[in-house]
């Protein structure tokens, strides 16, 4: 098989291996969650008062909400003692050579400068609590496309932020972790695509969590105006520590009339990370929202990207591949609200579990009264590598309109000895046969990724699968 050495050398893969990195930083806010710490974060950022008030209000909501008792087991998470804000060295810049060398090294290994040259329209890189590099192609900037970190957006585009930030899409009160996020958010990307502008290549941001016991709370806000097109990709990575860290992002997407938005996230946090995110899109008339996800890392995940189909003919596609190995509990799924006529949604959730990994699919398909002609389909496919591993599905449906078409299907399968024998009879080793079957299994997702990422995702899974047979 054509082993791609580059992907192994540079990729997310290598990050995993090196856990003994020192964790430098320029400034940090003390451990623990208090109003003073929140005010300090806001002050360090030089934020306007309205944002500080928003943070404090979110924090009050957080205090009132109980920890969720459903989903992943969060009992071992000491959230009150996380490091809420770790500022890396250096300044925000759009010049790669100005990025501090330890940060540059990390992102160099992820192949970012090359990716930017080859197939990206813009790149961002976030290290712990702040971004250190953000750049977009000049021609796109000239067309009015905005791609900056969200803190910069607060300063430079306050009107847009006031209108869209944690207001109608994901309000702080949505859940315990969105409330916490509202209090502690930092970094993330702000994307604005003007009417009719089609961004020809993906924008990508990389997130790196490098400080033991930290919380990373980046906020992503994507506004795609009428008839525009945008393909946005996130990559997440962290070295392994024994201390538990929290990643609690909020992603808010506005797909206006006739627009197309593809949001892709490849997550490879280390297993000490609790990954508790809230991601939602409001999808207007005839717009298409695509969620593409590869969830490999983290110990506990709770993540249910949500599409609110509010306009006639709005469409959503949720495609996710989840991998769970020893010590990993992945509680993820998809939520779709059909709130207008002729809206359609497709959910394809694939999962692979080995060595006692546990995947759960938690889905909600809701069709409101009046959403005549709505079509909703979800399909879960679980691949279990051994008897220790587990896969559960909790598909919920709530249908208030009769003239609709709705379906759910769940399949769990194993790799059979006979199937392996067939592939081995053509000269593939047992491991190669397993890898080939798995790469085929995730192909519906990988084919939507830029080739480089598809290769990388396959490599990551192959690495995880090593020693799983024989």
């Amino acid at each position: 098989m054509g082993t791609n050495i580059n992907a192994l050398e540079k990729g997310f893969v290598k990050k995993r291996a090196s856990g003994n990195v020192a964790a430098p930083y320029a400034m940090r806010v003390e451990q623990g969650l208090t109003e003073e710490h929140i005010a300090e974060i806001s002050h360090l950022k030089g934020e306007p008062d309205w944002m500080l008030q928003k943070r404090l209000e979110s924090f009050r909501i957080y205090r009132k909400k109980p920890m969720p008792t459903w989903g992943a087991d969060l009992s071992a998470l000491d959230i009150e003692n996380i490091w809420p804000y770790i500022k890396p060295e250096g300044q925000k810049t759009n010049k790669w050579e100005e990025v501090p060398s330890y940060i540059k090294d990390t992102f160099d290994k992820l192949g970012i400068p090359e990716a930017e040259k080859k197939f990206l329209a813009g790149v961002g890189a976030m290290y712990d609590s702040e971004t250190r590099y953000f750049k977009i192609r000049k021609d796109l900037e000239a067309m009015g496309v905005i791609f900056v970190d969200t803190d910069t957006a607060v300063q430079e585009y306050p009107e847009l932020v006031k209108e869209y930030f944690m207001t109608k899409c994901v309000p702080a009160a949505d859940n315990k972790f969105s409330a916490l996020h509202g209090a502690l958010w930092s970094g993330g990307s702000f994307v604005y695509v003007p009417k009719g502008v089609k961004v020809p290549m993906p924008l990508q941001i990389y997130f790196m969590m490098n400080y033991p016991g930290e919380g990373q709370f980046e906020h992503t806000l994507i506004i795609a105006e009428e008839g525009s097109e945008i393909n946005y990709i996130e990559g997440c990575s962290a070295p392994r520590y024994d201390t538990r860290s929290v990643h609690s992002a909020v992603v808010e997407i506005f797909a206006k009339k006739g627009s197309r938005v593809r949001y892709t996230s490849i997550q490879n946090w280390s297993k000490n990370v609790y990954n508790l995110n809230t991601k939602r899109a409001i999808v207007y008339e005839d717009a298409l929202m695509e969620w593409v996800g590869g969830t490999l890392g983290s110990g506990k995940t709770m993540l249910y990207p949500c599409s609110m189909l509010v306009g006639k003919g709005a469409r959503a596609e949720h495609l996710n591949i989840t991998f769970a190995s020893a010590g990993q509990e992945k509680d993820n799924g998809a939520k779709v609200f059909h709130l207008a006529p002729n809206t359609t949604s497709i959910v394809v959730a694939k999962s692979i579990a080995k060595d006692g990994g546990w995947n759960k699919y938690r889905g909600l398909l809701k069709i409101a009264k009046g959403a005549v002609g709505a079509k909703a389909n979800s399909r879960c496919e679980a691949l279990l590598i051994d008897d220790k591993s587990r896969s559960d599905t909790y598909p919920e449906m709530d249908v208030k309109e009769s003239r609709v078409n709705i379906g759910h299907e769940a399949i769990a399968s194993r790799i059979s000895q006979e199937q392996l024998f067939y592939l081995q009879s053509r000269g593939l080793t047992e491991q190669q046969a397993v890898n080939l079957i798995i790469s085929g299994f995730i192909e519906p997702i990988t084919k939507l990724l830029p080739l480089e990422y598809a290769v990388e995702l396959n490599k990551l899974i192959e690495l995880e699968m090593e020693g799983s047979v024989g």
Partner: protein
Amino acid sequence: MELEARNLHVSVDGKEILKGLGLRVKQGQVHAIMGPNGSGKSTLSNAIMGNPKYKVESGEILLDGKSILEMPTDERSRAGIFLSFQYPFEVSGVTLTNFLRTAINQRRETPISSMEFNSELEKHMKLLKMKKEFAYRYLNEGFSGGEKKRCEILQMSMLKPKFAILDETDSGLDIDALKTVAKGIEKLKNPFLGIVIITHYHRILKYVKPDFVHVMVDGRIVKSGGAKLASELEKTGYEKLVK
């Protein structure tokens, strides 16, 4: 080169199926093994290919005089043994092209060039009357019975084995498909390829002439002869040979 099964005893799930079978195939020869259902024909092909479900209790399988019993299936394949499956497996998401290229590169020092691969593939697909788009379909997924069998022979043509066992490649094929597949096999005949055709029926042997015909009953070869034996069997059936 020679492939030999010597006094082979094989059991499946504790039940003995092959009971002292002997067979010698030289490169360049075509052997046909015929026999009624349950006589152990598929057990023989699985045992030669090294399916772990089939346990060799005693006896030998030799490739060029050397035992291959300790070799895992993939090594046997790379050593030059090929099995055309009676029921090929489906592999979703893996295109026939991707699969073939992976398999071919397994037996080469350096990966095959795209140009060489494509021209080989095109040539053999044409011979088997397979439409081009098959190359980009997922391996065996949604293939009809006939398409699966063609795909097996295509793999054989691309992998260029020294010994090929065709396990009921003719079953489930209509007469036109049978002719195409048989023609494909006929084209592959060469002095460096030994072929073992396992079949119930005489009809495929009209198109691929065997040098030897063996009759298998209850885990043993009970009679061997030339091509004529096949047509005799067609008339008399196996009854006489089953006691």
